[in-house]
């Protein structure tokens, strides 16, 4: 399990490193020792700045947005003007102003500071929950699609059963099963998000695996006698990253909402935790009187989701390694 997590993360990290240190941009200078040996075409290596410009626009915009979010999440608690539960920041429900960009909530707390404080919670819980779901779902889906036969049938029926339960109900059942002691425990929330997403991601992964498993390079690996696990890690996973990344970005956008809904029902994080989904739920009734209290966390969430989507879409395109026209 941990090995798989490490391997998948390492895979992604290696991909990103591969983009940055793109081998196609290195020069293969060595002329052949044997004159028949083909020397690769000379290719010039552009400067890092030029490399950045070659990246798809979506990748560039997405990574800038994500960098800002990450910066806020890490450093926010140190420079936010108010604490997340600090009351008396100003007159309750007063609108946007320079001092309070997202206004003041019912309890006279500064919404902007709460959003800043909540940033790391969202990124930690929502992203790690989705990431765990992605890892589990990918492993189950890819293996099931590659192995096929009755194993695949059995796994698919279980997944279908899980998917058929509405996700909020499934989450509540899981939390209830864990017992009241663990209610509001961040680890439990991560596990619940993973449980809700893993079956859905597994379906996508299985479809990708069935497609990839027909390629000749998978046949070569099978002829070599590689185990299903090894085929999955070496052949299927790297070629499914495009699909899986897009799936990850989409799911990660809904995760804060799911966590917020759980909190609103009293099963998730408890107030005054400044989780964005929870803030949106809390202040929903004030939407007409003080829209900025919902708008603040809403905008923050939206920009994170858009950033994630742009980033992963661009990443999938870079990783796609499509043959360029000039080399046709």
């Amino acid at each position, binding site marked *: 399990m941990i090995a798989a997590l490490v391997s998948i993360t390492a895979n992604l990290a290696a991909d990103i490193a591969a983009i940055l240190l793109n081998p196609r941009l290195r020069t293969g200078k060595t002329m052949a020792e*044997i004159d028949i040996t083909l020397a690769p075409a000379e290719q010039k290596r552009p400067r890092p700045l030029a490399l950045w410009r070659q990246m798809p626009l979506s990748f560039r915009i997405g990574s800038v947005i994500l960098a800002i979010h990450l910066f806020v999440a890490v450093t926010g608690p140190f420079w936010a003007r108010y604490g997340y539960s600090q009351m008396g920041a100003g007159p309750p429900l007063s609108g946007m102003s320079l001092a309070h960009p997202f206004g003041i909530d019912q309890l006279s707390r500064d919404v902007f500071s709460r959003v800043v404080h909540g940033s790391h919670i969202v990124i930690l819980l929502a992203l790690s929950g989705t990431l765990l779901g992605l890892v589990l779902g990918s492993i189950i889906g890819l293996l099931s699609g590659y192995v096929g036969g009755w194993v695949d049938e059995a796994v698919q029926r279980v997944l279908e059963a899980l998917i058929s339960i509405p996700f909020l109900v499934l989450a509540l059942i899981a939390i209830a099963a864990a017992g009241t002691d663990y209610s509001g425990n961040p680890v439990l929330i991560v596990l619940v998000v993973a449980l809700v997403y893993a079956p859905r991601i597994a379906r996508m992964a299985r479809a990708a695996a069935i497609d990839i498993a027909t390629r000749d390079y998978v046949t070569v690996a099978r002829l070599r006698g590689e185990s299903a696990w090894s085929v999955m890690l070496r052949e299927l996973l790297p070629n499914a990253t495009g699909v899986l990344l897009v799936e990850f970005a989409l799911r990660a956008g809904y995760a804060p909402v799911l966590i917020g809904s759980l909190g609103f029902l009293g099963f998730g994080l408890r107030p005054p935790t400044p989780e964005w989904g929870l803030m949106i739920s809390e202040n929903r009734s004030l939407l007409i009187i003080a829209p900025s209290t919902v708008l603040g966390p809403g905008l923050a969430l939206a920009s994170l989701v858009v950033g994630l989507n742009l980033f992963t879409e661009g990443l999938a395109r870079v990783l796609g390694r499509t043959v360029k026209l000039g080399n046709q």
Partner: protein
Amino acid sequence: MVENRQVLVKVTDLTVSYRQGSGWHQVVDGVDFEIARGEVFGLVGESGCGKSTVALQLLGYRHAAMRTDRGSVDLEGVGILKLGRLALNALRGNTVSYVPQNPTTALSPGMRAGEQIGECLAAHHYGDAAACLARTTELFGLVGLPEAPDFARRFPHQLSGGQQQRVCIAMALACDPKLVVLDEPTTGLDVTTQEQIVELLVDLRERLAMSMLYVTHDLGLLSQLADRIGVMYAGRMVEVAPAADLFADPKHPYTQGLIGAIPRIDDVTQQPSRPLRGLLQRQSLPKGCPFAPRCDAAQPRCFDEVQDLKPCGAARMAACWRVDEIEPPLALTQGDPSRRPAAVDSLLNIDAVSIAYGHGKRRFQALRNVSLDVRKGETVALVGESGSGKSTLARAIAGLVEPVSGSIRLQGRGLAAKVKARTSEQRRLIQFVFQNPDASLNPRAAVRTALSRPFDFYFPDRASEAGGRVISTLADVRLDQAYARRYPDQLSGGERQRVAIARALIAEPALLLCDEILSALDVSVQASILALLQRLKTERGIAMLFISHDLAVVRMLADRVSVLFRGDVVESGSCAQVFSAPFHPYTHALLEAVPVPRKRRRRGTGRRAETSSSPAGCAYAGRCAWQIGAICETDAPPWRTADGGLAIRCHHSLDELHHRATWPGDFATPT
């Protein structure tokens, strides 16, 4: 050609660029040529030379990532490149029509064959429904398809590849165009179907007197069909000449290389393929002649001075300033060093293997009682058209398909049917090289990873050698070690196939299963891979089971040949025996179908009829030109054997078969 030729199409200084990243990349550079009425003009070159781009310009094709920088295409005084969309719609299909490369994707899968042609007629206001239907029937007759109405009601998937291409051709002919543009129309078809399509085109040209532009990478094919040939290299026209002159006396060094690279089935004494050096690398073209980096006769001046087409001799032009000095390189004669007597040690025995797919009514017998031996270091070729079961046999040997009956033994020990049940050693000794190098390499694994994984897997205790072995194996397939860092999308088709071969070699196999490994490659790349295989064979003594439909290649490489037809072995023997009389009627038909430069086409080999479905008789009955009569349909033919291991399965006696053989026939003597 005709005395006073009327020019139909005149292409002048055509220059086309494609968008690439933020810039534009020129793919066609100042191409000039003209096509006369009733003339077949062949356009030939390696993939990526811009020949398809030129062909599409004759139809005024444009899209957002493409622009025409200069030049004009004049069709009877109309500048096609300046026409608006509506005028182009009226022109396309009506005056100029197009036959695409792949008929499977060119026909709409949800539309009946007849309707597709009717649609084209209706778009050009041919007439009412009844007139369209009558014309459709007429066209089907014209291209040699059944005229029966129920045939026109078939969907594309109910037609064979050859029939699909005939429908495409019928569609192109529907409105009596003045010019038909054919873009590699036979590349995806097997050799007998290809022969029939070429025959159809020759016949149509004579009957309809229309002009054709025939785009292909197969020079041998053009020699059968074209009046004049234009050779393109890196977006430029390097030579234009009448077909006969081009083959007899190629002027441009590139044309010489291209003709030299064609494997010749008619002449084994000549060193068959002289590979063109290197590859077309469009990123690093010199300022002057684009061919200079690969040219044996290049001089410093070539790299700096642009070469334009200049007349050289009657009605021909070449873009090389040294045209008069360069002699075609002398053919290197060699006395078959590769064909040494094979060892007697048997490596692989296949005994009466039968394979069937599906169950019940849909059961399809892919192989029937096939027996085959491969000795150590020997190359055995399996020949046959698509659907003959040759790939199925290779897959059974590899352990991907389970035989219904029969046994396969490797080095005397039985091989389990499933690859999982075999020992690691057995799996290592048999390595598979696939047809399509694009699909056989993991696009996300660098060459180093792709090669070191099998080595680590098979030799876990020699892990420290892996890096060195990768480099030495790359050198074995003549790739520089800098390739280890590359990913498959950074490699050309030929380089990918070399890496795929290297991946098989690094496992130190005893038997290499090569499934059509050359058919996806350009002719010059084919020649260099072929040279590589020949070298591996002599140096390493690796046995090969070489599956191919290309008989010229088989003749150069194989020690022994087995001919398969619909799952039956119909002839087997040593390479020399199979390629000389007596022939099995099917082998004979295959050989006749091979296009050979300087050989004019013989007529009338007849159309491919459906074969009998009776399991008792000869599988080839019904298509056989030498059929005796009912006995072929009802009785299984006997094996007729001769000295030296030749075995032919036919009701005719060997003497009779010998008597009937007309191949190799009258090759024109090379000049």
